[in-house]
């Protein structure tokens, strides 16, 4: 993918680089063309089978909710592509950047349109992966790599919970199609597995949408280039969690668990994030925290089910995407033009960058919630929604007020100060106006915020009402978007917001310093991440040292210990014990032979001389051969004798050249080894005795005896078995011998050659 595209290099930032923008624009137009019929209450569903055995289909559903998201994704996408074509012009990795960003946009569209849970998950993870690759665009810095991993790990962890939740939901509901699941009404809420499913799915949604305490990855994700921050980490991808909660709202909302989890998490995230936003000096970081605030607010609204809350959700979703993408792109323009994003340095840009200044002002006014911008309407609705909360409306409205006032102050810091106050220090570059492709996006989005504010009807019927219908099942409860709703409580709150916000803005210097001190003192989540990773690494290293010691001796001990525990444990669990063996066949000869074998084995184990060990092992082998003779199997005994002699002689020749066996410290381990060896021996003996208790089935032996001469034309049954009945075994064993010879030859050759080469490290860690 990246390979082909990246070779384009500089050229790719030309007209070809606009292809993604054209694609997005075309998609936007197509989605827009669907809007009238969706507004009329229709839904569009298409499905292809993908893995029907697993209940997975590529089914897509266009309704009010998904259409709103799709329009935001493709529309803002088109502007962001246009922007980045200039912003990153000439960058050697522009090709892969454009590719990843296009892939992201398609995945994001898939996510919001998918009707099948697993398909949704697939797109969900695709956005995670593309986000990872895009955050890592600045991959040569450790910070960039760290941020990318953090985002991937946190959202990836949530995604795994989400997958479990989806599977559980699919099995519980009997379908993986969202439209079928949600059509079941309240059945889900009454199900015993409702709570586990909810927790698992919310884990996915909260990590993706950076709700407290999973919020810390999002500010770090600003390591990505600005268009990425604007598109993924503000306007679209981070809203995937919000989208999912909205999508599941009809089937899941209304319970206490839903209400309180979303309300508390959302409210806390919103207030906490807006405080943190005021603390930042990097404009982009400040915006990142305001995104968190918006996500918290949207989550909070989704916790409710009043018509006001849902209308507020739909409106604020659009408002936020418009002004936030505009502001991010505006910050990118400033960065591009001046070489810095530090609030302390920037100033007096209004003269040099008038168009940027214009866009920033419009977007910031919408963000601050001034009339006649859409942000004002959104804010009024949010207050109305908060006041409609069944329990604790004061608390929710209070949180909203605090967050909105802080937003007001941040809007001033980000979009007013850099343009109008005197410069705080020398700028890296002399400021100049950004080129038009970089201005088109911020200006258009900011102007739309004003247009929709003045003509809210444009949104009402096309997007807001259909979205509310997706959430509540009907448009009846959708509230009217209007600039002037009379003097009511929301309006009073608005006035309070402006007053409080203005005060906060004027005092933001001292507040910032105080916040900075407080944050320094408090344990940070970001530092916690490092501790988590260090802990994980340390634990992994510890357990690996414990298991993989690098010493063969401990490996062999552990393996035999497993044998002993496994077999003895099974004997105990199953209560199988051998009866006392029948010793009637024992006579002085067999007893003497057994004693000889035991003595040989003992000597092998305790001697420190290799030659003595080989010799005593030979005694064991010959003892076994003698037993074969005693019990009337001379042919087997001869084979055994031959093999034994050969092995002893060959091994002795080889081993003679090696040092003695006794190593320091080895003696201490002897008792432990002896216990294990005796244990394994005892268990195997017990099993053997048990098997001997069962009668022998002689079917095969009988067949070999009768068939050997008439059918296989051989009188020596052992020979016939080897070369005819079981010839394939013999063939395999012949191969083993041949290959053993080959391997031995290779080993000898290489050890001879190796004398000159330097020593290399072994398994050691």
């Amino acid at each position, binding site marked *: 993918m990246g390979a082909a595209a*990246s070779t384009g290099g500089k050229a790719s930032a030309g007209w070809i680089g606009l292809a993604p923008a054209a694609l997005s624009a075309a998609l936007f137009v197509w989605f827009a063309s669907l809007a009238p019929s969706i507004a009329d209450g229709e839904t569009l569903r298409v499905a292809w089978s993908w893995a029907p055995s*697993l209940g997975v289909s590529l089914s897509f559903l266009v309704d009010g909710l998904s259409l709103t998201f799709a329009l935001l994704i493709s529309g803002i996408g088109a502007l962001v592509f246009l922007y980045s074509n200039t912003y990153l012009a000439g960058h050697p990795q522009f090709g892969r950047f454009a590719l990843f960003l296009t892939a992201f946009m398609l995945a994001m569209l898939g996510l919001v349109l998918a009707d099948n849970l697993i398909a949704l998950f697939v797109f969900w993870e695709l956005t995670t992966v593309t986000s990872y690759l895009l955050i890592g665009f600045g991959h040569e810095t450790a910070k960039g790599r760290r941020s990318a991993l953090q985002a991937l790990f946190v959202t990836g962890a949530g995604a795994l919970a989400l997958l479990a939740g989806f599977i559980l939901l699919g099995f519980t509901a009997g379908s993986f199609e969202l439209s079928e699941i949600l059509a079941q009404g309240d059945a889900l809420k009454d199900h015993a597995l409702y709570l586990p499913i909810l927790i698992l799915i919310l884990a996915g949604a909260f990590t993706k949408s950076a709700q407290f305490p999973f919020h810390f990855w999002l500010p770090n994700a600003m390591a990505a280039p600005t268009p990425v921050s604007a598109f993924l980490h503000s306007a679209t991808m981070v809203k995937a969690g919000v989208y999912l909660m909205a999508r599941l709202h009809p089937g899941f909302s209304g319970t206490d668990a839903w209400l309180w989890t979303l309300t508390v998490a959302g409210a806390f995230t919103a207030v906490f994030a807006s405080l943190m936003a005021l603390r930042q000096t990097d404009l982009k970081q400040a915006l990142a925290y305001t995104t968190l605030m918006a996500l918290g607010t949207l989550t909070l609204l989704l916790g409710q089910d009043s018509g006001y809350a849902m209308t507020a959700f739909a409106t604020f979703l659009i408002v936020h995407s418009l002004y936030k993408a505009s502001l991010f792109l505006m910050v990118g323009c400033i960065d591009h033009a001046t070489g810095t994003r530090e609030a302390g340095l920037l100033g007096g840009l209004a003269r040099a960058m008038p168009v940027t200044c214009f866009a920033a002002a419009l977007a910031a006014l919408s963000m601050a919630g001034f009339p006649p911008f859409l942000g004002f309407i959104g804010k009024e609705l949010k207050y109305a929604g908060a006041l409609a909360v069944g329990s604790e409306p004061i608390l929710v409205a209070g949180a909203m007020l605090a967050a909105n006032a802080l937003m007001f102050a941040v809007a001033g810091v980000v979009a007013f100060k850099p343009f109008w106050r005197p410069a705080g220090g020398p700028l890296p570059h002399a400021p100049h106006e950004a080129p038009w492709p970089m201005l088109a996006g911020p200006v258009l989005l900011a102007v739309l915020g004003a247009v929709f504010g003045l003509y809210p009807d444009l949104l009402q019927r096309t997007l807001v009402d259909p979205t509310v219908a997706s959430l509540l099942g009907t448009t009846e409860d959708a509230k009217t978007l209007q600039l002037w709703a009379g003097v009511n409580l929301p309006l009073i709150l608005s006035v309070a917001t402006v007053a409080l916000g203005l005060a906060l803005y004027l005092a933001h210097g001292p507040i910032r310093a105080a916040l900075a001190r407080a944050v320094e003192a408090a344990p940070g989540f970001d530092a916690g991440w490092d501790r988590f990773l260090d802990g994980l690494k340390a634990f992994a290293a510890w357990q690996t040292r414990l298991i993989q010691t690098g010493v063969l001796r401990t*490996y062999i001990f552990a393996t035999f210990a497993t044998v002993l525990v496994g077999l003895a444990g099974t004997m105990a669990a199953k209560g*199988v014990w051998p009866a006392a063996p029948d010793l009637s066949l024992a006579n002085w000869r067999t007893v003497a032979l057994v004693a000889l074998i035991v003595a040989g084995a003992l000597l092998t184990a305790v001697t420190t001389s290799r030659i003595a060990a080989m010799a005593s092992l030979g005694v064991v082998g010959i003892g076994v051969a003698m037993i074969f003779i005693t019990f009337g199997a001379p042919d087997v005994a001869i084979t055994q004798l031959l093999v034994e002699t050969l092995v002893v002689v060959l091994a002795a020749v080889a081993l003679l050249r090696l040092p003695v066996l006794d190593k320091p410290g080895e003696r201490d381990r002897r008792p432990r080894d002896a216990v294990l060896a005796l244990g394994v021996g005892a268990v195997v003996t017990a099993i053997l005795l048990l*098997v001997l208790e069962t009668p022998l089935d002689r079917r095969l032996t009988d067949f070999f005896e009768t068939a050997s001469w008439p059918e296989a034309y051989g009188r020596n049954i052992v020979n016939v078995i080897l070369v005819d009945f*079981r010839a394939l075994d013999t063939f395999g064993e012949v191969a083993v011998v041949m*290959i053993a010879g080959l391997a031995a030859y290779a080993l000898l050759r290489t050890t001879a050659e190796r004398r000159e080469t330097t020593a290399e490290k072994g398994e050691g860690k």
Partner: protein
Amino acid sequence: MSWLLAASIALPFLTAVLAFLFRAGPAGRRISVAGNAALLAAAVALMAETLREGVIAGQVGEWAAPFGITLVADLLSAVMVVITAITALAVSVYALADIGERAERLGYHALFNVLIAGVCGAFLTGDLFNLYVWFEVMLISSFGLLILGGSKAQIDGGVKYVALNMISTILFLSGVGLLYGMTGTLNMADLARTVPELEDQGLVTLIAMMFMIAFGVKAAVFPLFFWLPASYHTPAFSVSAVFAGLLTKVGVYALIRMFTLVFDGDVGFTHQILLWVAALTMLTGVLGAAAQNDIRRILSFHIVSQIGYMIMGLALLTPLALAGAVFYLVHHIIVKANLFLIAGVAERVAGSTELSRIGGLYKSAPLLAVLFLIPAFSLAGFPPLSGFWAKYILVAAAIEIEGWVIAAVALVVGLLTIYSMTKIWAEAFWKPHPEGLEPALTRLPPGDRARLLAPVAALAGLTLVIGFFPEPFVAFAERAAGQLLDPTAYMTAVLGAAS
């Protein structure tokens, strides 16, 4: 059509002999490639036959079962042989540029192809003792391949490998002897018939445990996997790729075969143990990987971890879970072998597989970056790659029967797998090279480039195909699982309708 069964074993042997005879020149390696292409053709024909006919069996030397040795192919065996042939072909092409003349003169191609013969034999045999023989063939030829380079690390790894595998072998052989003593037969289908009729089922469970431990060593499960991380990072890349793809999977196959066909009488005991083994194998393996800083060592520990997933499928023993195990086997072999091959290219281009000593591959070798991302993210279970479906089926199977703990373990291990795959990515690909090198693929000689990258690209392509078009593979795995859970067809094919 039983000659197809024999062909899949005979062809690699023939290839080995011919390649050995012509080992002095380039002919040897070409014979290896051609032989493995022929093997692939035979394997595909065999699979087509099993798809059409169901289970097919052939009696070696026309000695009727259970008196002679039976070769059998059901869908599982057939797909394992196909995947073996694919791996073997890919690796034999890669070896053209990876294996030096010295190793070739010492018989590399013979050792390699005998190993493949052993693997195919193990998948196709219907006889327990014969399975033991194929294990021996594999053990000795893999030992030869391990120590072929003759470095101290290789011999150290080789000795550990052989010593620990010998314990498995002895235990396996003892188990075969004892089982024969109890039933008087070695034929697996015949065992499936006679073992349930034995009076002392407690003893059967005890013998089953012997096999579980013996095969557990081969499959590298916890706590028996020591030999694998001790040896897999040492040999030539071609060798570690084929080991990584195939060797442990023969152990997994043997476990699946014996614990669905013969030892399924006390599932509450044996398969419960397998489930714990699976969980611990997944966890210890993935943590081991997290502690490593060398690409091949990371990948080696990941093999262990993923064996856990396959054992999980066997332990749950539902149709979906077994299908998951089969799917996982196929996916894993392709992906794992490929990652080792890619590690080899990375070493050739960037100078090492030690993560602290390399970097910059993303910038200057984007093609390699793409080729790495596909198997690496597949291994990490990202959709829509093959590993996602494998993980999804197994987790779904666990959730289906409310196996919450094992499902949670499988998911958490998936997350940790992401961690170590991205570690390789961040260090080897993203980070700038510590010596300021720009490791481009052009550093490879042009001929070598194609020979190294073509197999990598082909295997990556397969991963994509499985990922994007999972349905036929899932359906196949479900059919294979059905055959495993109801071995009537298997037994009839081997023993005849009379049984």
